[in-house]
């Protein structure tokens, strides 16, 4: 299929449309509000569901197949924040704290983008490795630590460092993702079946609901777009493209399947908006949250959701033909 056709199909999925609806609701200043507790509940659900499904599929994987992909994922976790930092400092002329803060976000991952690419591949009926949620967990944290380390070296200090690293490792997304994985692994396929009517079947619907809220959250950041400037807007679109290609390439080298490489590319391309902001706000309080939140939530996330995923799918096809 052609890339344009893929983008069109993707744009007309209920998930992307719900995201757009969220944006529209905010722009017309609707009184539509998502209860914070529903947001929290849905994100617990999504993380756990992703983990459990991955865990149940892990029972079919050998550790062997897993080793190389895990290694290149770790590599991505070091390479992307370093590259991102350099670009932001040199080309973007950002200060140390702001550059490191943004780099931490682009090195880490967005779980919802992961869920979206999973859904996209399932609709295209392209299989991918069952251990991909494990790679999400592997990619989420190291990049943040690397970026904070860079700032620590460049600035001579970073406040509350030990606490920040501990909080990262015990962060809710890690706990739920890895916890779900272990549950899925131990309970196996038959265990997953018991809870499938909640954790598998309605997953796409729950993601749709969640993206409605994400659209509202993203749109609330739109008015900051002017303030953050043209460079960051371009950065929020081009950096994912670069990272996505690197991810696909490394995935291919590591022996991932076509679907697996698309997922790893998307993960590399995605920017964190849960783990990274919380860590950065504590460890680098002097960094301006407008920069990293706007870039991650209002630029890169929508871009990946609407265009990035089909693009990476198209790009990966060059590596796999």
């Amino acid at each position, binding site marked *: 299929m052609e890339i344009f056709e893929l983008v069109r199909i993707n744009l007309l999925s209920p998930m992307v449309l719900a995201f757009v609806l969220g944006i529209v609701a905010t722009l017309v200043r609707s009184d539509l509000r998502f209860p*914070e507790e529903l*947001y*929290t509940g849905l994100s617990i659900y999504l993380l756990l569901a992703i983990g459990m499904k991955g865990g149940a599929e892990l029972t079919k994987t050998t550790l062997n197949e897993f080793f190389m992909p895990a290694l290149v994922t770790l590599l991505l976790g070091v390479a992307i924040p370093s590259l991102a930092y350099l670009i932001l400092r040199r080309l973007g002329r950002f200060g140390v704290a702001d550059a490191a803060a943004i780099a931490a976000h682009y090195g880490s991952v967005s779980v919802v983008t992961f869920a979206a690419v999973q859904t996209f591949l399932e609709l295209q009926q392209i299989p991918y490795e069952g251990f991909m949620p494990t790679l999400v967990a592997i990619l989420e944290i190291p990049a943040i630590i690397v970026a904070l380390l860079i700032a620590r070296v460049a600035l001579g200090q970073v406040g*509350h460092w030990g606490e920040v690293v501990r909080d990262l490792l015990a962060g809710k997304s890690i706990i739920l993702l890895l916890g779900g994985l272990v549950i899925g692994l131990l309970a196996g396929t038959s265990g997953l079946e018991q809870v499938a009517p909640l954790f598998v079947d309605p997953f796409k619907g729950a993601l749709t609901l969640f993206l409605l*809220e*994400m659209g509202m*959250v993203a749109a609330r950041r739109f008015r900051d777009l002017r303030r953050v400037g043209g460079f960051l807007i371009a950065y929020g679109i081009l950096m994912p493209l670069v990272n996505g290609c690197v991810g696909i390439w490394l995935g291919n080298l590591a022996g991932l399947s076509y679907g697996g490489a698309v997922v790893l590319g998307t993960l590399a391309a995605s920017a964190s*908006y*849960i783990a990274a*902001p*919380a860590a950065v*706000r*504590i460890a680098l*309080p*002097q960094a301006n*949250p407008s920069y990293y*939140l706007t870039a991650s*939530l209002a630029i890169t996330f929508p871009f990946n959701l609407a265009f990035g995923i089909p693009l990476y799918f198209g790009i990966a096809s060059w590596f796999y033909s």
Partner: protein
Amino acid sequence: MTKLKLVTIIAEAILEDRLVRELRRLGARGYTVTGVVRGEGAHGSPVIVDPGGQNVRIETLVSAEIASRIGAYIADHYFSDYAVIIYVLEAEVLRSDKYL
């Protein structure tokens, strides 16, 4: 009835745990947190890090001396980088030894 100080801190939700720990260390014997609260001030809308999080209000009844210690500490450690305000009210309490 004894006169004490009711110190109120309004801060980014992400700081809750840390502030509570520090209040204890500065001598507060108890505290009450109301959250989430919404608000705007010099930093505009609160810096919502997790899309869910907003501000919290932390209140603690303390002696005048500890109140000013808390005020100085917050000013030193939070005013420059975080959206935090602090104010102090005069309160009358029963069982004042409980708070001292």
